[in-house]
């Protein structure tokens, strides 16, 4: 009898298992494929590894502007994949070490619920007082004829590419699609992005999304917005443009990045009466499902498909199951997109504030107000946008475009989380010279 069995070894599951283990609980973690989950193996970490290489490659081309002359750089795709594999292996090993040190028993296999407190892995049944479902998600497969053809990649298989493609068509202009668009554009592929919605980076602040579109278009990425992909035939992608006109383009590869689907199937959820839909398992802000003793976190809940959201949700669930009051405050959950330049955001968007009827004040300053940003970026385009409540002056949202914003968005998250007012935030000292000074300027501009 375990205190907790965690199903799924991604950033939601393994962090929760370690947390419970450190609390002295008897914990088992069941993982069917990869310790570290999507994030470590085919998500955040591999993507950032690729993007690091593509950035360096681009920078070699731009080096002359910084007074550095280099020869013609070559993008060695197999070496990049090899480096990625090495980093993933190192990190996976690290997670295994952490699990071991926290006393978590790792069971490899596919887990199914057979009762409220019983899990079956193969022929073996395990009982636990609490179950935490952290089975994650997988790339969605939209009903586009030909989407599973041999030249179509998804966000798993893209990491095994062995050479730089000449051209790639990316279906989906969300966070994942945009990151890959930047990667392929930087390594020399011609990139076209097809997005069903009129904006890219759905969910981002409208002004930020529009600016990002301009920046990426200027980089050379071609966008087809409000466009519907009709079918894929070999290298040919047929689509209907915004005005309804049909067209087609040729691409060496087609990348499907239309989103992710919660892994709710084949888990025995029906058997124990868990309230779920294809969109995910319903949970409270404490991570509770409708069945007592069964908890869920991460992508499988369909709430916010971000690794750090999963981690926080898992830890909150563990805290609550063992009597520590805790709740996820989704309003202060930061998000980062590793496009070049990066996007980082936390809190409410202007559209959300309008929809909620919240009165607000806003400011928007160019990143270039921070000297360091200009130093780092010869053609630096980027902005920081701050939204404050008009009544109390508290910082409600911070949205940024610009490299290094991913590293200072946590400061903005603290402000949002603690409802810090702009005048008080102005009393914080931002180190000079750093890119974060742009945030300071944006906050000061509110007052």
């Amino acid at each position, binding site marked *: 009898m375990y205190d907790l069995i965690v199903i799924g070894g991604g950033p939601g599951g393994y962090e929760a298992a370690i947390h419970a283990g450190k609390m002295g609980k008897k914990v088992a973690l069941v993982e069917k494929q990869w310790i570290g989950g999507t994030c470590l193996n085919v998500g955040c970490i591999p993507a950032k590894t690729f993007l690091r290489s593509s950035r360096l490659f681009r920078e070699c081309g731009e080096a002359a502007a910084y007074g550095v002359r280099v020869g013609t750089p070559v993008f060695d795709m197999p070496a990049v994949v090899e480096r990625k594999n090495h980093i993933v292996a190192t990190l996976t090993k690290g997670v295994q070490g952490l699990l071991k040190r926290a006393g978590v028993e790792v069971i490899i296999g596919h887990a199914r619920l057979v009762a409220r407190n019983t899990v079956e892995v193969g022929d073996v049944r395990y009982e636990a007082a609490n179950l935490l479902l952290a089975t994650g998600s997988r790339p969605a497969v939209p009903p586009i004829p030909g989407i599973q053809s041999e030249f179509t990649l998804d966000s798993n298989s893209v990491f095994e590419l062995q050479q730089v493609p000449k051209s790639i068509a990316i279906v989906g202009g969300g966070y994942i699609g945009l990151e890959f668009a930047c990667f392929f554009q930087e390594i020399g592929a011609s990139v076209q992005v097809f997005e069903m919605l009129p904006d890219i980076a759905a969910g981002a602040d409208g002004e930020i999304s529009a600016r990002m579109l301009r920046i990426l278009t200027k980089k050379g990425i071609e966008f087809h917005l409000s466009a519907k992909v009709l079918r894929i035939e070999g290298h040919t992608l047929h689509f209907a443009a915004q005005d309804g006109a049909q067209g087609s383009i040729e691409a060496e590869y087609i990348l499907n990045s239309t989103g992710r689907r919660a892994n709710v199937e084949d888990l025995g959820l029906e058997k124990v009466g868990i309230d779920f839909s294809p969109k995910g398992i319903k949970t409270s802000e404490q991570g509770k499902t409708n069945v007592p003793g069964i908890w869920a976190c991460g992508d499988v809940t369909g709430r916010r498909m971000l690794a750090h959201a999963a981690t926080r949700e898992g830890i909150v669930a563990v805290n609550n199951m063992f009597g520590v009051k805790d*709740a996820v*405050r989704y309003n202060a959950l930061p998000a980062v997109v590793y496009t070049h330049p990066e996007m980082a955001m936390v809190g409410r968007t202007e559209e959300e504030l309008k929809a909620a009827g919240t009165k607000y004040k806003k400011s928007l300053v160019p990143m270039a107000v921070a000297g360091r940003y200009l130093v780092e970026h010869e053609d630096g385009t980027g902005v920081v946008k701050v939204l404050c*409540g008009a*009544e*109390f*002056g*508290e910082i409600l949202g911070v949205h940024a475009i610009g490299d290094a914003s991913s590293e200072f968005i946590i400061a903005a998250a603290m402000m949002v*989380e*603690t*409802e*810090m*007012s702009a005048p*008080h935030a102005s009393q914080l000292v931002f180190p000079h010279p750093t890119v974060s000074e742009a945030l300071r300027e944006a906050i000061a501009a509110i007052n």
Partner: protein
Amino acid sequence: MAVAVEIPKLGNTVEECLISRWLKEEGQTVAAGEPVVEIETDKTSFEVEAPIDGTLLARFFNKGELVPVFTKLFVIGNPGESVEEFRPQAEGAHAGSEAARPEEPSAQDKHPEPVGRAGANASATSSSAAWSPRARRFAEEHNFNPQAVAGTGPCGRVLENDMRALYHSSARVSDAAGQGVRNGAFAPREGSGIGGMVLAADLAAPESRISGVREKIARRLRESLAGTAQYTLNTSADARGLLLLRARIKASSSAPEININDLMTFCTVQALLEAPHLNVLFVDGTIRQGRGVHIGFACDTPRGLLVPVVHDAQALSAAALAARIKELSAKAVEGTIPADDLSGGTFTISNLGGLGIESFTPVLNPPQVAILGVNAIQLKAVRKSGMVEFIDSIGLSLTLDHQVIDGAPGARFLKVLREKIESVEQICTI
């Protein structure tokens, strides 16, 4: 030669200091430069030294007292010298002083802070008036304004350390929530933010004060229920005559504007003339029979319930009564009704029929002994020569004060009223 030492001005904004500690007793000898008393302002604390060698002849203030700057604090001299010439004037002369003498308990009762911050439930209570300047300063700087702080200073005075201890043991209040609290909202002890931080969403709306009218209504109704023996009789009357008459009035272009409520009021006046035992006031154990029928009617206004009174309603025709009711109602709704028209009633009618109420318990308007509730007109099945007939019927709910009116006399009044309603076409000439 005795020397008096006063509180120096410690800064442009400092107007008063708190005596935090006496370091020397009266009668003790002190050397020049030796500290005699420790005082504190909202910014700092420091020691006031003896300017000369001598004996501490007098201390004019006790520990914990607030003293304006430039006030003489103590006198040093030779034993036997008079100190009276130095003694500061009486309390009243302390212009600018907050007069927060700790021995006055009233300081703690005055100015109760309306805001409740997290962690405000300390065992002792205090108002900000009993906070030391440094404690107040700390509270301001930390956006912290607790309702009650247990003070450890003299007479419960709250010192900076008390404030600091409470601050560090309380859940924090976010900037936004703090602003809300200053606007009158109430903070719970613990909020939903990090470590129980109170966020704006955790605030309860400020309490809204009821209007003067509502307060009066509340008091009167409470007194009514507390001071009488109320009970309610329910019955109904055949309303076909009422409806026919109303239809006739509506159809006629020359007829005055009279509605069902007016007709019911008219019938009630007629019934009270015939059964005057309900048209009385019960005051201090005596029954006062009214000379006229002064009918009050409950009127729903934007400011709450008002009861305008039609004086000497027995003298009015149905049309005149209707006109008077209309006039008084309009004034009540506008808020321009004179006080005289809101008093002096001997009987009250409350009509909720228009809102579909089928039966209710009107609450007496003492010293009146009866109030009639008029209900909706409904179809009622009646047996008539072996057949069942459906007739329009109006509900009547009569609340009486059992101290004065027993059930049977109450029922007899209702019987008379029913007869009046059922013969309304005859008694009411349009």
